């Protein structure tokens, strides 16, 4: 276990040390102490290592992650796991706005609540939120799965493409062109797997699926008055 004191050694030294890890590194476990809400912790990792951050993080923790597992023992500031490619990010507390934004792959688990714009423009990432999510979540979501064990705020899935949105609780309102969808056996299977990976004991059958009504895919002259 490598322990890194962020306050003492600074962010640049931390990220350089983490970036220096190769695929076959034997320094596979890292613990970061004195995070104190700092920005850009463990950004741009590309090695099969496990990083645990003790405390809460500021902007953009674990952004652009590849392969690595990042655990945050606290809450995360805006843009956590933004543009993740692969790997896993687990937040024990809450996440601020645009968690998992534009993510292409990997799994983001938020054990508390997520604020607004969770999964905005997601492009293949899987996100599981144990609590609730805020407004405008999954805006323009393109692919991947967003699983919400609690409630969703206003305008869920506005202008979304082919991402699957699963919500167990209430949805305050659906965004433009987002609609309730049928839960088929394959969706139950996807959900079961994601909930298991995220350590949630929620039952897949309790969720409702939402997705694109696909009415915005093509220009409709009847809508021209709305532009």
């Amino acid at each position: 276990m490598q322990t890194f004191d962020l306050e003492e050694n600074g962010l640049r030294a931390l990220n350089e040390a983490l970036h220096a890890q190769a695929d076959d590194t034997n320094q596979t476990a890292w613990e970061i102490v004195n995070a104190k809400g700092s920005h850009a912790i463990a950004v741009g990792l590309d090695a099969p290592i496990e990083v645990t951050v003790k405390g809460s993080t500021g902007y953009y923790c674990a952004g652009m992650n590849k392969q690595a597992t990042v655990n945050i023992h606290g809450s995360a500031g805006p843009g956590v796991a933004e543009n993740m490619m692969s790997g896993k990010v687990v937040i024990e507390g809450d996440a601020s706005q645009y968690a998992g934004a534009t993510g292409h792959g990997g799994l983001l688990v938020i054990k508390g609540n997520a604020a607004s714009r969770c999964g905005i423009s997601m492009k293949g990432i899987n996100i599981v939120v144990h609590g609730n999510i805020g407004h405008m979540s999954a805006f323009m979501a393109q692919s991947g799965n967003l699983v919400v064990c609690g409630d969703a705020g206003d305008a869920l899935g506005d202008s979304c493409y082919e991402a699957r949105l699963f919500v167990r609780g209430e949805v305050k309102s659906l965004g433009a062109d987002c609609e309730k969808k049928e839960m088929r056996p394959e969706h139950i299977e996807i959900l079961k797997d994601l909930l298991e990976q995220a350590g949630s004991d929620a039952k897949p059958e309790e969720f409702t699926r939402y997705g694109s009504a696909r009415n915005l895919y093509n220009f409709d002259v009847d809508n021209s008055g709305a532009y």
Partner: protein
Amino acid sequence: MCGIVGLFLKDKSLEPQLGDMLTDMLITMTDRGPDSAGIAIYGDDESGTSKLTVQSDEADTLFPHLAETLTIEIGAPVSLSRKDTHAVLTIASDKVADVRKALKKMDGVRLMSRGDTLEIYKEVGLPKDVAARFEVSKMSGSHGIGHTRMATESAVTTMGAHPFNTGDDQCLVHNGSLSNHNSLRRKLAREGVYTETQNDTEVAAAYLTWRMQEGDTLGEALESSLDDLDGFFTFVVGTKDGFGVVRDPIACKPAVMAETDQYVAFGSEYRALVNLPGIEDARVWEPEPATVYFWNH
């Protein structure tokens, strides 16, 4: 950008440390707003007296005689306590209007705040320098609000810095930018509420002042700001006995709150709160969009 910090003490034993804690929080927010900084602090309430905080770029020339000049002008004692470019005038509460009238006629002296307990200090410069000039860390009080500014809508000047005084013992700080401030400024002028600068936040402050003149409570004024102000904002407002928070419905400007048995704290980022006592066990959350929060003593 801009950074906001706020601290409302529930535990009176922390009051002597208020300025020290706020200074630390303010300096942490330097990279969100390095061009100006300001602080509003609520101190002791001495019955029958009120405070006016004034500022002058020619403090060395004007302040030594200011108390004496005003005393003669209004026919009642005025005492002055200077801190760098600012000075707090203490007067009998029933003489506030007279002093304000006298100050209006003076060149080079600007009113920063009025009230029974509120003092506002703000200047251009790095937050650490501004805090040092006014010796904020030595101040005690029941609650206070600080702001670090990164100007977007108007010039970097003392009068463009936050907090803004909106009424007796009331102040406002803002993170964001308003897009309808010009039309609202004209509308307010028609109602007889005038602003001094081209600053968008000053318009928001004037708007709240106007709503309260029309009979709204501060809470109601903040509720109606959600309808009438267009743009991005996280506002923190101070009152004589507490403070409030409101974010616009889109809520893209950050806000974090923490509460313990000893205090309620606000920060634009969690970083600003990390040195507060007992923060590890505090309830930490993000205020909801379009929701008015208030804490009172």
